[in-house]
């Protein structure tokens, strides 16, 4: 139970980073931390005590193995996270080109 709470703490660290920081790069890092906290939670849910990886091996027979389904989901999630991170970094670079700053409070093109 404790490790799940630690996952929640890690998620909250990322959420704090997204909500309170002003630098776009730090916001992107916060998004990545949140994403990996969720991935870690999935992998921990799948863990069984004394479990081995769910792969056949020639020497040992497997008595107790971890759940492979969340691991497959997390693998897909990592790939999608990579793509979204690349898009976020590209957008951040475009913003820096246009405004010359990474500070979100200084981007004031639309002020009324």
């Amino acid at each position, binding site marked *: 139970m404790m490790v799940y709470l630690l996952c929640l703490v890690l998620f909250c660290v990322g959420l704090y980073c997204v909500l309170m920081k002003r630098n776009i790069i730090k916001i992107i890092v916060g998004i990545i931390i949140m994403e990996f906290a969720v991935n870690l939670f999935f992998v921990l849910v799948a863990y069984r005590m004394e479990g081995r990886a769910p*792969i056949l*091996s*020639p020497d040992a027979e497997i008595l107790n193995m971890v759940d492979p389904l969340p691991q497959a989901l997390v693998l897909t999630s990592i790939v999608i996270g*990579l793509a979204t991170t690349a898009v976020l970094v*590209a957008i951040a*670079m475009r913003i820096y*080109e*246009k405004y010359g700053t990474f500070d979100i409070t200084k981007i004031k093109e639309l002020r009324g």
Partner: protein
Amino acid sequence: MSKEHEKGMSIIVKTITRLTVGLILLYGIYILSHGHISPGGGFAGGVIIALSFIHLMLAYGKEVALKKLSKGVASFFESIGALLFLSIAFLGFTGGYFFLNFLSKGEPFKLFSAGIIPLCNIAISFKVGAGLFAIFVALVLLKPEKGDKK
């Protein structure tokens, strides 16, 4: 070697990179080729192979890395990976259906076994490695347009 590469990081980083980048590439190929008998596979191996080239680019600057693997070659390998995967899947129609494992399965837990799965892993690693390297190159080569700044 370091005299002709004035750009990039310091001599310490360059020396360590020169020693380790081949090992990283070999480790990626190992993960890739044992994908059907141990954890790993096409995606993980492709990512490690791409990371070896990204490592080279970070240490030596973009010219050296682009000389090893240029933008056009990366694009070519990415397309070849997707086409290879699709053609392996279509070759299953020779025996009956899509993604049929038409090669002989071999003996379990040997390196040359499991039919078409190692070939699929190689195709995926081409796609993933070249694609990841191309993303990094696109982010590096993105130049700001002049005279657009307020």
